[in-house]
């Protein structure tokens, strides 16, 4: 803090210098060099160098070894479980998160404020707490698990449990991306549709839904990305059986505990690459839908 004080008083020279160099527009506000320099250094040390280290470690394996780890049946199963469950959970969140956003924005009902506030719970509640709470609820003797068990439905310690935990984790991403777009939606557009003879369902599907598409895609990709890497809430409710209900992050932990760092690094790198490619595709679809349906968010 003291450094800030002494440095910033001498800094008004730096915008002038950077103007000649044309890296930044000149400004009378001081502190550009100090704040950007500090932020970049901190970012590089904490985030960029360690992440690059993961890439280097995976690259140092050599292609053959990397391919052997990537195609190992246990790795493939774990990746399928992680990405498959994340996909199902994100799709479920499109339906239920969209519904929740709609109900919270469009209708007034007792307790609306409280339900609106509670949507953020998964952001604030530690994943381990969510994990043990969900598994206690859905276990064979739990409040929900017991009645479901009588119907012959098992959720805890099955792949369905993984999806349930990922729905919990992803829900606020969907609701909080769709909600602001719905709030700013001009109801006049709906009136026009109604005047032109559309019934309510036609208006919702043909007028409102297309405008929400970019926001829904954003919410979907955020929920999906979060769910793919999720660990804490899942391991308590999944039975963690290899080839069945073992998620990729858990396999990384197991490989690290076996001191098999190369395998752990390779699985981590594969996860990052797949997630990156999927988000890239979603971003492209989103850019297309923005052009097609207008800027919805």
């Amino acid at each position: 803090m003291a450094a800030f004080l002494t440095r910033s008083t001498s800094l008004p020279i730096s915008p002038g210098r950077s103007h000649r160099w044309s890296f930044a527009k000149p400004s009378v506000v001081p502190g550009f060099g100090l704040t950007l320099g500090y932020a970049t250094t901190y970012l590089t040390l904490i985030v960029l160098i360690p992440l690059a280290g993961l890439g280097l470690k995976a690259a140092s394996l050599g292609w053959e070894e990397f391919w052997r780890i990537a195609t190992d049946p246990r790795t493939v199963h774990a990746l399928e479980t992680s990405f498959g469950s994340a996909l199902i959970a994100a799709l479920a969140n499109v339906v239920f998160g969209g519904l929740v956003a709609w109900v919270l924005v469009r209708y007034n009902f007792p307790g609306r404020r409280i339900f609106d506030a509670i949507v953020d719970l998964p952001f604030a509640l530690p994943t381990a707490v969510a994990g043990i709470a969900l598994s206690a609820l859905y276990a064979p003797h739990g409040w929900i698990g017991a009645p479901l068990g009588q119907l012959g439905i098992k959720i805890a310690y099955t792949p369905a449990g993984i999806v349930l935990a990922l729905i919990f984790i992803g829900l606020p991403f969907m609701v909080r991306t769709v909600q602001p777009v719905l709030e700013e939606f001009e109801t006049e557009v709906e009136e026009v549709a109604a005047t032109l003879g559309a019934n309510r369902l036609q208006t919702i599907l043909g007028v409102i839904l297309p405008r929400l598409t970019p926001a829904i895609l954003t919410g979907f990709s955020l929920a999906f990305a979060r769910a793919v890497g999720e660990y804490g809430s899942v391991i308590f409710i999944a039975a963690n059986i290899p080839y069945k209900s073992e998620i990729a992050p858990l396999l990384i932990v197991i490989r690290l505990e076996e001191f098999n760092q190369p395998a752990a690094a390779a699985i981590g790198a594969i996860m990052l690459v797949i997630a990156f490619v999927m988000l890239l595709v979603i971003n492209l679809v989103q850019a297309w839908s923005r052009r097609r349906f207008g800027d919805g968010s």
Partner: protein
Amino acid sequence: MAVDPSAGSALAAAPRRKLAAGRSVPTSERPAVKWTLIGIAVLFLAVILLLPLVAVFTQAFAKGPAVFLKALSDRDGVAAIKLTLLVAAIAVPLNLVFGVAAAWAVAKFEFKGKAFFTTLIDLPFSVSPVISGMIYVLLFGANSALSPWLKTQNLQIVFAVPGIVLATIFVTFPFVARELIPLMQDQGSGDEEAAISLGANGWQAFWYVTLPNIRWGLLYGVLLCNARAMGEFGAVSVISGHIRGVTNTMPLQIEILYNQYNFAGAFAMASLLALLALVTLVCKTVLELRFGVAASRRH
């Protein structure tokens, strides 16, 4: 082209008469549909979000207050609580300083590569917590290139507190910056320019002009950062080594108790973190309602 105003009002009155007769207006759903949708949404939120929260507190006191207190007051429990507080006390201020610096640079200046810089700040959000912990194990662990040097310096990072702090900083990295950047961009730099043209130095402009403008957003970012810092499980789990009483944070202690079938103890520890989450949510709601802090849509 003059339009008879009475014709317009007659048209507008038509749907209202319909409404009065109990029929639906074309721009809203029928009451039956509306209440069904509300019912489904409320039931979904209650089962998915509310019930787990209720379960944490009821399970915590299921075996009575004595078991509850014992889980929190035994040696390992106290050590876990202390470590969690210590880690948050280091990680949150560091990310706070970074967040303010990054937001100042992004919001007050135009420079090349700004979009790229902001994207990089968000990067830790899209990395799995387990990978966040692993990158430091690879960098500072027993087989790393840095390992011989760390040994000569007698520095232990992996399976020790510094590693836990690093992993926590990584996962909570974007919170404050994410909250401040849009807020400070909306405010522009006109106020600061005025202060500086009136003779204030940069530090005075920040302290007396910028900080009062951003304090609620800043507080909100710190709250979220703190909640995540105290509750982080995956990243910390990978790097801590689970040494009881030494490198166990509260979430890791929950896992140990749970795996020992000490459910009441696990839920007692969990209830403290759930309480923290509730306080965070209440503060967030109050900040939004009273000060109009824009809710962050990305975490």
